[in-house]
């Protein structure tokens, strides 16, 4: 069966510090991968998605970047955090187009920037 992991579960970082959040998927190959952010009291905003190693698409201009160094690894980064980067970050995966249209979500990372 497939599983998706995210870490850390919670993170408190000062403004201006770097960020690295990691997401890994097990039990499947060549998944599409997604990073979402959920601000307090709001829906989910798609930040990045990837259809393959080294292929990253950004949905909104921002202070964050993403990388996919391996097939089932997706990393969200920032060089200098802003207060507005606080939120709940969710990683998700789905099968490559044509097989399934359901997304599977990780447990999330709660980021607080102080």
């Amino acid at each position, binding site marked *: 069966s497939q599983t998706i992991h995210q870490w850390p579960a919670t993170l408190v970082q000062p403004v201006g510090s770097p960020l690295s959040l990691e997401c890994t998927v097990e039990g499947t190959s060549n998944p599409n991968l997604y990073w979402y952010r959920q601000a307090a009291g709001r*829906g*989910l905003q*798609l930040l990045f998605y990837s259809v393959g190693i080294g292929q990253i698409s950004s949905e909104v201009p921002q202070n964050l970047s993403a990388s996919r160094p391996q097939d089932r690894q997706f990393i969200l980064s920032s060089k200098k955090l802003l207060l507005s980067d606080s939120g709940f970050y*969710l990683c998700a995966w789905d099968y490559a187009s044509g097989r399934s*249209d*359901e*997304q599977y*979500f990780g447990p*999330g990372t709660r980021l607080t920037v102080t």
Partner: protein
Amino acid sequence: AQSVTQLDSHVSVSEGTPVLLRCNYSSSYSPSLFWYVQHPNKGLQLLLKYTSAATLVKGINGFEAEFKKSETSFHLTKPSAHMSDAAEYFCVVSDRGYGQNFVFGPGTRLSVLP
């Protein structure tokens, strides 16, 4: 462009009474529609999905939703609320089912009173 409207940001029901969470969408194509549930500080779990088969869709935990094209609606219902149903619910629309096209509604918080 796609969009999703969840008409109620907060719904409160008594345990054992019916639940109705409303969702309206707009889409240029034949959409796929989903309902996800999120318990506090957790990832999202799929409740049910519509992908152009039967218009009445049954999901997990006794939830169901009916796709009404003429009303562009996909309301979520449950005959009898349980305390464990208290959570945030997201309606999602996707053109042709591609994950990159997932658009999340703002969410409805369901409270269940004893």
